[in-house]
């Protein structure tokens, strides 16, 4: 899962990015409206955290720009003002959720997770596929009830596949959703990563579709 944080305050931005990375997300950061808008339109993020009080193009303008361009990505809006007028305008402009500053990082993580779950069409925070369960709120995976130790990247890969079960996902799509913008992309890395994850969660869960990509099956066929 790859997120975009658009926030002008460097300290808040750093804390957000740190907390989100610690929670297993790939995070890109923009400090200014124009840059945020460009990144949001050019990179396939799974969710965006957008501060409304931005210098240059303000957050609302950025959000409206995205929605006019047909961007469906869930957006959580952050604001210092906290008036209902701002909430209403933000939500009417296409925001999916709203958080007033100062906020607790846990609250933010819970909201992001709910947004991701909803956009994937899942009602429960616990995703299941075959014998593997992924608790997105606790960020923990188990196989037959036994916890699986995963690196941040492995967790990210598993979570992305489990959010989109039964869909054939190309290597490039995985690259785009697992790595931050600064990462030097190489498709071999994905192959290595998928193989490493297969060893931990069981080989039957993830099928390779040659030339197309990978597919996670919900039913246990292995």
């Amino acid at each position, binding site marked *: 899962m790859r997120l975009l944080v658009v926030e002008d305050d460097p300290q808040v931005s750093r*804390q957000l990015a740190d907390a989100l990375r610690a929670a297993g997300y790939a995070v890109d950061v923009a400090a200014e409206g124009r840059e945020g808008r460009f990144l949001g339109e050019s990179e396939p993020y799974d969710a965006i955290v957008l501060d409304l009080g931005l210098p240059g193009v303000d957050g609302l303008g950025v959000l409206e720009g995205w929605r006019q361009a047909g961007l469906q990505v869930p957006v959580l809006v952050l604001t210092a003002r906290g008036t209902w007028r701002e909430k209403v305008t933000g939500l009417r402009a296409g925001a999916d959720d709203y958080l007033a*500053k100062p906020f607790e990082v846990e609250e933010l993580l819970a909201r992001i997770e709910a947004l991701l779950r909803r956009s994937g069409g899942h009602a429960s925070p616990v995703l299941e596929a075959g014998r593997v369960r992924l608790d997105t709120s606790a960020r923990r995976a188990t196989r037959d009830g036994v916890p699986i130790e995963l690196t941040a990247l492995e967790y990210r890969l598993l979570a992305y596949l489990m959010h989109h079960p039964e869909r054939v996902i190309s290597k490039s799509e995985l690259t785009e959703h697992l790595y931050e913008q600064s990462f030097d992309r190489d498709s071999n890395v994905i192959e290595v990563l998928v193989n490493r994850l297969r060893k931990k969660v069981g080989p039957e869960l993830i099928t390779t579709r040659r030339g197309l990509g990978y597919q996670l099956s919900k039913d246990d066929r292995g």
Partner: protein
Amino acid sequence: MTEGSPHRGRATTLNARLVLTSSAWVLLALVVADTVLVWLFRDHIERRFDASLDDQLRELVAASDAGADGRVALAWKPFDPRFNRPRSGWYWQLSQDGDVMIRSDSLWQDSLPVEGSAAIGRRTVHLRGPAGEPLRALVQTLTLPRSRSTFTYVVAGPVSDIDRDVRRFIGQIAVTLTLLAAGLLAAVIVQVRFGLRPLRELRAALAEIRAGRASRLPQRFPAEIAPMVDELNALLDHNVEMLARARMQAADLAHALKNPLTVIQNESRDLPDAPSRVVREQVKVMTSAIQRHLSRARAAGARAPGARTSVAAVLEDLGFSLERLYRERGLSIRIEDAAGAVFRGDAEDLEEMVGNLMDNACKWARSQVLVHARTRDGWLTVTVEDDGPGVPPHEYERVLSRGVRLDESAPGTGIGLAAVRDVASAYRGRIDLARSRLGGLCATLWLPAAA
């Protein structure tokens, strides 16, 4: 803004001032005109009267002649029936050296009491006739050829004739001038009303603003009032600007403080347990203090005269927003009866009040929130109910106080209802809490409605 009343002592309306002073001038002018006209008329009548006496006198003089014995005689008697009718008031007589020689038939045996004067010449005198009636007489004393005597001619007519004409004239002029006065007064009243109409319109326009039906005065006033209207409009604009600036500053301050607070709050997680808890508690205290003062600074209240807000639009916006924010819980938010209700105040204020009430209801509701707005007797009531656990009646006052939350399990700073009360009281409104039919809390907001 009431009409000048007698209790204020002297008449205080411009209307009364203008009508009274104009009326006084009109009446004075008419009285003077009346006096002058009567005097002129009397003078005119007297001249005519004297002219007719003079004709008579000339005829007498022409007819008279001194005989060989030195006694005066008339060659013919002047013919005018008035002088022949006895006691008609029209008389003439001719004296020679003080003795009455010839007299008109109307005098019969009497004579006119004219003091004999030797002086040659003519004069007008007033005297009494045989019946004691006042007469106006022309007296001429002269000498005749072939005689050394002086002859005195007297021709007199009744003063009552003059008086009668003058009286009739006075009667006619009184009626005419009274009609003129009535016409002029009516014209004054019409003129003053017409002239002061812009002021009445100004008052009506101000009433429109107070009632919330307009936000500025119209520009169609005459040049004398236009500067005042412009000033008032500038003042109203200034109010709106001040409000916008206060809100801008509140927003800037919020931005300036809340980012550091966010950083402090989240950074303190790395501290040991005890200090971390203290820091986070203090951050909460600061946040709610900021929130409270900002919500006061933002509230327009009386600073926005003429504001008018459609309740239905605000409820719809809030319903949309809260359904989106509480999507996970699948709450049913029902809005009833809001159509047509209009709040006499600022839209952002109404959003803050009702938004906080609805948000609070959504936090506690099990499955449904019911909102309805109604207008009654100049008051707008917005009621927000939920089917949550509710609040026991003895806690009502406490939940409306600052910083008090009954339960820490729902998120929020605990200033929601108190902020609502603050803003409502800026409009002289209030908030009532009661038990809802749905089982939870029923909060009713009382606010001024716009007509």
